[in-house]
């Protein structure tokens, strides 16, 4: 970890990443134990990217996410209890139980939503930035997406639009090398994602996405230039997805050696080592991890006991005009 970073800042990153890791491991366990409905897309191994990027966002900034959205929400300061309730489909969930993991969102912190459609977040992020610019509001929008999303048309349309209008968007590509069960390189032509962005008028920088200090530093530079009106930027962060594509996917198609090698490059352990170098005792980190574990255990306990939404909630939040009327119960 060559990048200079202060002790407190790195400790904060460590805590953020530990919370994400614990959330993902908890979600995975809950899924395997059939205690939560639906699927979850886990981001274990990728924690340094949301941690490093979101640390550079101001209160008024916004972000869009992907199907793999827990980490972005947590790094942005999302409420873990509400997220857990959402995963369980209960009252008090971030989305009242209507969205689930794949649509997790928290407008109070400018988190416009995970999204079940690959690349759908890109034009939404650009629209959020367009609105901010139109209103003269000094907001930056961070737009997270995966390496597989660069093969969808909205990638081109969104980057071009953002560049034409010089909008305050930081595009963040989490390059974990996989598009579901397919290695992205097999379906992706050309010299790379950075070149695609540059060809669309969006300057791009690559970073080691498992090095939280490096991500933080570069994201800081890019957010500053975006905020100063320099137009959109792209941060290309290399990382690896430790688990299967969804919680239902064992990932058997991947070479176990590849996975094992990737796991040796653990963003949390890297941060821990650097913190050691900065004089932080191992006990302090262990304390953070046990805090976080307790937080998660508590969240699960509450969520599992929480009531399900009233069936009448099926009919609310659809639309004002022409809202659906409740069926007579069968």
């Amino acid at each position, binding site marked *: 970890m060559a990048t200079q970073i202060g002790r407190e800042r790195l400790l904060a990153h460590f805590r953020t990443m530990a919370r994400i890791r614990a959330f993902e491991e908890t979600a995975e366990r809950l899924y395997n134990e059939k205690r939560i409905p639906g699927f979850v897309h886990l981001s274990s191994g990728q924690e340094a990217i949301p941690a490093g990027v979101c640390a550079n966002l101001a209160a008024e900034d916004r972000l869009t996410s992907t199907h793999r959205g827990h980490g972005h929400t947590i790094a942005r300061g999302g409420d873990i209890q509400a997220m857990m309730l959402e995963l369980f489909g209960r009252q008090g969930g971030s989305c009242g139980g209507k969205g689930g993991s794949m649509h997790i969102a928290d407008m109070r912190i400018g988190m416009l939503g995970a999204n079940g459609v690959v690349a759908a977040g890109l034009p939404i992020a650009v629209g959020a930035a367009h609105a901010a610019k139109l209103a003269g509001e000094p907001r930056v929008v961070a737009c997270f997406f995966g390496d597989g999303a660069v093969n969808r048309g909205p990638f081109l*349309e969104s980057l071009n639009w953002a560049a034409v209008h010089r909008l305050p968007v930081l595009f963040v590509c989490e390059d974990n090398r996989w598009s579901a069960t397919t290695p992205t390189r097999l379906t992706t032509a050309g010299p790379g994602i950075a070149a695609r962005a540059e060809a669309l008028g969006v300057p791009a920088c690559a970073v080691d996405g498992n090095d939280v200090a490096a991500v933080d530093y570069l994201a800081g530079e890019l957010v500053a230039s975006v905020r100063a009106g320099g137009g959109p930027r792209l941060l290309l962060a290399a990382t690896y997805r430790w688990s299967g594509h969804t919680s239902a996917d064992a990932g058997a198609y991947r070479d176990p050696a590849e996975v094992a090698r990737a796991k040796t490059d653990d963003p949390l352990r890297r941060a821990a080592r650097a913190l050691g170098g900065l004089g932080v005792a191992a006990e302090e980190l262990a304390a953070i991890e046990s805090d976080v574990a307790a937080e998660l255990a508590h969240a699960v306990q509450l969520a599992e006991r929480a009531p399900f939404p009233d069936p009448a909630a099926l009919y609310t939040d659809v639309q004002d005009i022409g809202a659906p009327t409740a069926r007579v119960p069968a």
Partner: protein
Amino acid sequence: MSRMSFVEATRQALAAEMRRDGRIFVLGEDLGRGGVFQQYRGLQAEFGPARVVDTPISESAIMGVAVGAAMCGARPVVEMRYLDFTLCAVDELVNQAAKLRYMLGGQARVPMVVRQPIGLWANCAAQHSQSLEAWWVHVPGLVVLCPGDPADAGPMLAAAIRADDPVVLLEYKELFPVEGEVGDPTLPAEIGRARLVRPGSDLTLVAWGGSVREAAGAAELLAARGISAEVIDLRSLWPWDSAAVLASVARTGHLLVAQEATEVAGFGAEIAALVAEETGARVARIGAPRTPIPFSPALEAAYRVDAARIAARAAAFLARHR
């Protein structure tokens, strides 16, 4: 009341709304030159290119940017040029705009208007003439409006802009140049109310958009044959005024729905089915055959659901059931 074209009424309504509310902006291709039907003539000069945005040919982004902007406090009005090009932005409209408020448990709203010029016009053939209102009515979360005459054009657009929901506004291309008596085009309409075009006692004829004229023409033809048809302009397709239609059918005992769109699985099926469910009255439909839209005027003439065809269908329908 003054005489005004449909398109002029929409321009006045849009300009008035934009003066009233600085959050409104319009986005679409070529708007700075007025757009294909001159719906935007003069607006870029008045409001500037930041509020009347000339976009790239990027329908997905046009729609998706509007969604993101609407979630964040802006009030976008999207111009799709032809309804047909909306087919390049269906994920953004249906998977995103329509569902986001719900998926987010009410945390966000998506107040945007999607203007879709619809229907036959100038022999533009299969990819520039479709009527797909049935699709949008089938999508939870969307409001669907379809003005049928110049007096409604402005008020419907104003109401769409003021709605906090995503609204699909279907504007029949052939109506844009049509003139009529118009009240204040900037006064928002009440959404969800049908309009009685012509009273009658033998048959209820329901239509919307461009078909309202044809239905009215058919009523004339039927009158000459001693049949009294009541013509209703639905105006709003979701929500639609089932009370008005049911009340009319209760009097006439017969319903005929006339639509320009493909008859099979069209919106007319919903109206006919609901009236049949609720009343047991005799129902019938007329719409386009299940063929793509042909170019040749000779074929288009065979395709079109015009006043003569509607009248013939009505007469045959009544003959069978009276």
